[in-house]
């Protein structure tokens, strides 16, 4: 790993310029069609924006047809990180994130992040089942609160009742 400072996903907004190189190379590989293929790629690169917050991520792109996808980390079903040979040379990767929707195509494909491994592991730690259950914590806290409230009621009742002389 060459990164020294810990990776901070909230700083990620734009894809790395290496993505533009990758798009150009893949467009050139289509041969004579590259003139037509390259335009959507350029538009996508120019308009691509990412946003990672504490609960979920969003990704938007497009000039004529604008798309913005938002998903929460807890809904992630599985994460796929793929690198083809060109991407490996440029240090890029595609992170495909899947939710439980019907399509088998990935819901979000994050491209153009150099710290793909770190981002993938960030998503992994946010995903369901990567951490301990929250059930126990949730159950314990309110129950104890109710118990202490009841004890307070009992004690104040006793204090009110005791001074009176009962038959």
């Amino acid at each position: 790993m060459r990164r020294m400072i810990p990776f901070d996903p909230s700083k990620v907004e734009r894809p790395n310029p290496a993505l533009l190189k990758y798009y150009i190379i893949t467009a050139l590989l289509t041969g004579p069609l590259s003139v037509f293929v390259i335009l959507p790629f350029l538009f996508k690169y120019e308009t691509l924006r990412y946003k990672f917050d504490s609960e979920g991520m969003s990704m938007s792109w497009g000039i004529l047809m604008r798309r913005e996808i938002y998903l929460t980390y807890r809904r992630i079903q599985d994460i796929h990180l793929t690198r083809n040979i060109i991407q490996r040379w440029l240090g890029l990767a595609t992170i495909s994130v899947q939710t439980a929707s019907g399509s088998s195509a990935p819901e979000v494909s994050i491209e153009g992040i150099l710290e793909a491994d770190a981002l993938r592991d960030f998503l992994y730690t946010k995903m369901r089942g990567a951490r301990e259950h929250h059930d126990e914590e949730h159950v314990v806290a309110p129950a104890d609160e109710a118990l202490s409230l009841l004890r307070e009621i009992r004690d104040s009742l006793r204090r009110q009742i005791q001074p009176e002389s009962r038959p």
Partner: protein
Amino acid sequence: MTRNVERAAAWMYRGVWGLLTRWFRVPEHPPTLPTLPGETLRSFRPAEGFLRYLKLKFWLGLAVFTVLIVGAWIALTAARPWIGVWLTPVALAIVAVPLVLGYLAIHLRYDSTWYVLSQRSLRIRSGIWTISEATITFENIQNVTVESGPIERFFNIANVLVDTAGGSSGGGEHGTKGSTNLHRGTLAGVSSAPEIRQLILSRLSQSKASGLGDESLPPATGWSVEHVAVLREIRDALR
């Protein structure tokens, strides 16, 4: 003689692997998973038997192919001896080239496949040209399938298929291996299949969620023994 051939093949293979890792940036080390403290990580390749199984399948296929080519060559030599003799190197090349390429492909596939298991998730790496790593938490798994054919059972291996929620790209229940179904993780050719299934299922049975991304259940509102005791005391105090 055969030992020398094997050694030469291994040496050639190491050269190819070295080139691949350097030029094509194939990672040499197994993938890892972020772990919680106290969590153990197990990374392994498919079982040795899987390599033998792949080779056996390959040899069987190649044998049919070789018989066809050699049969055609013999027929041709019998009919037109001169053309037959002239075509000998071509026939040899047709037999030898797939042999070498297939051997290489099988070993590369085997060596580039890694499975990583932690207590709560798994990661699968596979591929050479396009390297893909899939990460799935056990919590999200819907079902686990263990399948093995007669030859695979002979080699003492099995495939563990792990499905998460969501549509597959057709092919029915046990559909299309190698298709682009991203909702499935395949641990092909492992020797400890029952153990892996047990690990996943024991984790699944602890979970109350359905694996569809739903949050953990709302806090339980039932009274515990202590609550009831305090409530009794309140009642008694009011009497």
